[in-house]
């Protein structure tokens, strides 16, 4: 088959000693960038671009380095999610829900190994998908207009209520706070700044990383200070490091399902990795028989979002390479890198630069194996991290996050904003409002609003346009079912603890 001979050529490009070395370096840097809460994959790649120029790397080498960093960061994000309950980057958000409870039960090592394997499955699946289906999948982007995207985001918000199983109202309030925050910044549909108070710092909106570090890490520091370290959530039990083969086998189905969902979300340019991991988690929860254990340390709740976000990361490369449309923040930076290297991604890229495309695909496979090998033995090192006393660990992580964020924006404003989010997070913790929906609100709110208003511009204000295609109608039905079904089903599935709430 042609695909395999092309892939063989790709491996010939990728398997030079220098490229292999770059892949390994990229994987290590990427894992660290992902694990540090102040640095996400897009920032990590952006910081490294000038460095790759100053080393004089050519197009293939730069791409090898950057995509290894990209995949590495997607792996690394889970580490702080599981060990510290602080997402390392935005797609790792959902991994905190079950990963951290697992760590608390002394199963940190299991959670790390399981999520590492899940990441591998998701990323491998996505790379295979990219290899066989890229040119064909590119067509999918032509089917999604504003109405379809709006319905897709709506689907995400409708299933949000089911996420916090103890109190849906509080989850809804949290999502609304997030939506409110996402309104800050330049309004795309009128070109006017909104809610910025005339400050240029707020014109680009609130950065997710600032919100994540504030709501998770800084708030945790406040709680820690208040309780003199007694009530802190940090301080999980150390367990033995064993490879949980049974658990991996049992959650394999979840990984595959999540990979499919994540990959599709990644391929859609407007959706991205965060939506991929969210939908993967919610799908897994919806079809599972033991819904109640999600959020309390269910291994499948760890495997699904990790497979989902890594598959989405690979999926996001499809529209970037075939259409030049970035499917996520990181691919936007990679796209800029390609343009600077005199490569124009687009429909002709696969024909004009097969060496580059297939070299990239081969690199993805290599990076993936390197990451799996790196991540399993490294688990021991990461778990050791937990023997560091929380009073050193927590301020240390927060400090590194501060430095990371300051190094990117170079403005103290973001730091103040982060502390503001910390205070908000502290009070929300006190009144038991979950913070995960806030981040999702910030992440998705803007896109959802833009798509709705674009749809209204196109149709001249006719709302029936929102239901004008089979895809949109399908997504609307799924959204309504996702919203309504839990209300009726809860009669049959109500757990005893819910009554006393």
């Amino acid at each position: 088959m042609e695909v395999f001979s092309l892939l063989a050529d790709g491996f010939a490009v990728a398997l030079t000693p220098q490229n292999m070395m770059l892949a390994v370096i990229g994987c290590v840097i990427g894992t660290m960038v992902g694990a540090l809460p102040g640095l996400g994959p897009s920032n990590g790649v952006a910081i490294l671009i000038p460095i790759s120029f100053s080393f004089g790397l050519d197009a293939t080498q730069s791409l090898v380095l950057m995509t290894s960093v990209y995949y590495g960061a997607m792996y690394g994000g889970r580490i702080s999610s599981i060990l510290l309950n602080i997402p390392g980057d935005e797609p790792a958000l959902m991994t905190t829900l079950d990963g951290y409870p697992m760590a608390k039960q002394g199963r940190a090592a299991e959670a790390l190994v399981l999520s590492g394997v899940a990441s591998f499955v998701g990323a491998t699946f996505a790379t295979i998908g990219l290899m066989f289906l890229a040119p064909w999948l590119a067509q999918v982007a032509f089917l999604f207009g504003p109405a379809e995207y709006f319905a897709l985001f709506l689907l995400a918000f409708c299933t949000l209520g089911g996420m916090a199983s103890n109190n849906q109202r509080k989850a809804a309030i949290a999502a609304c706070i997030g939506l409110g925050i996402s309104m800050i910044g330049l309004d795309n549909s009128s070109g006017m700044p909104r809610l910025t108070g005339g400050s240029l710092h707020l014109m680009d909106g609130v950065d997710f990383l600032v919100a994540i570090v504030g709501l998770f890490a800084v708030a945790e520091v406040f709680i820690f200070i208040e309780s003199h370290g007694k009530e802190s959530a940090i301080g999980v039990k150390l367990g033995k490091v064993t490879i949980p083969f049974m658990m991996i086998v049992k959650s394999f189905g979840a990984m595959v399902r999540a990979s499919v969902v994540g990959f599709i979300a990644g391929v859609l340019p407007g959706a991205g990795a965060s939506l991929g991991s969210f939908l993967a988690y919610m799908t897994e929860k919806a079809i599972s028989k033991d819904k109640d254990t999600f959020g309390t340390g269910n291994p499948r709740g760890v495997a699904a979002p990790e497979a989902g976000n890594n598959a989405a990361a690979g999926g996001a490369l499809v529209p970037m390479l075939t259409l030049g449309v970035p499917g996520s923040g990181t691919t936007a930076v990679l796209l800029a890198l390609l343009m600077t290297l005199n490569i124009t991604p687009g429909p002709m890229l696969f024909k004009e630069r097969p060496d580059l495309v297939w070299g990239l695909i081969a690199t993805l496979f290599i990076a993936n194996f390197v990451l799996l090998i790196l991540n399993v033995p490294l688990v021991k090192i990461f778990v050791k991290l937990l023997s560091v006393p929380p009073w050193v660990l927590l301020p240390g992580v927060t400090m590194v996050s501060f430095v990371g964020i300051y190094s990117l924006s170079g403005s103290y404003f973001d730091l103040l904003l982060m502390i503001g989010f910390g205070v908000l997070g502290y009070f929300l913790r006190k009144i038991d409002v979950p913070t995960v929906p806030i981040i999702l609100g910030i992440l998705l709110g803007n896109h959802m609003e833009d798509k709705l208003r674009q749809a209204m511009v196109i149709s001249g204000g006719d709302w029936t346009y929102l239901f004008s295609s089979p895809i949109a109608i399908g997504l609307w039905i799924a959204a309504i079912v996702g919203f309504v079904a839990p209300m009726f089903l809860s009669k049959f599935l109500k757990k005893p603890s819910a009554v006393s709430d």
Partner: protein
Amino acid sequence: MKLLNQACACVLLSAGLLSQATAAECIAPANPGGGWDFTCRSISKIMHDIGAVDKPIQVTNMAGGGGGLAYTHVVNERGTDEELIVAASSATATRLAQNAYAGMTADQVKFLGAIGADPGVLVVGKDSPFKSLTDLLDAVKADPTSVTFAGGSAAGGFDHLKVLMALGRVGFTDISKVKYIGVDGGADAITQTIGGFTQAMTGDISEVVGFLKSGDVRVLAVFADERIAGDDFSDIPTAKEQGVDVVAVNWRGLYVPNDISDEAYNKWSDALAQVAASDEWAEAMTANGLAPFTKVGADFAGYLDGVIAEIQTLSKELGVIK
């Protein structure tokens, strides 16, 4: 953790060192990888390579407020710094014209010049009924609701304004009726147009190259003085040829602080003119889909005043500014 801390510190240190080591500085008012970053990096490098400046110029990224943070920084804190250049483009001029930089105006810095430009284009899908620019503009005149334009900038941004300028030339002035949606970048705008959700895409020629080669789109007009050289582009008619006198290019250039000496200003504009004439720059332009567009010093200032005035008029009618 120690390991992570150290590694992180190394990365940060190396980034810090890179930006401290030399005297002259070029500020790219955006994150690495974008157009302004490219302007700073390539112009700085060529200036040093061809000997127009003695020492290497260091590039600093200062993202925020669509270039507004860097602009206020230069005006308020670096007003007399003779060793500073800042990357600028049409977006800088558009935002200044629309008071988007916290009320700062274009006369608070000195513009050095532009030495390359990405010409604007209007694009339709290959199956579109519109065969020429006139077809498209006539359709909008007849029924503004029948055509939606998609572009990579927010409403009121340069991509939107190009369409309005062209419509203004053919006598359509009810510009608030024109339907425009701002999406994430030019390629996304093309995707929406090929998908049939919007009827035409407005953007820069570098954004359509791939789709032009694959035959998925038809470029109705390029908003440049002359046709663009090169096999893929020479068939594309200019808007002027079709009787619509609009030149709308996304120029790439530099500005310097306002209160520097004439000597320093002349030193920089000479250096910029040398870059414009160099083979290295010609190569960099081809690689990035830029067309020659050299206006340095007073020539450029005159051009810029004209552009800003037109943008202000259009923006007032649109309601983007009062």
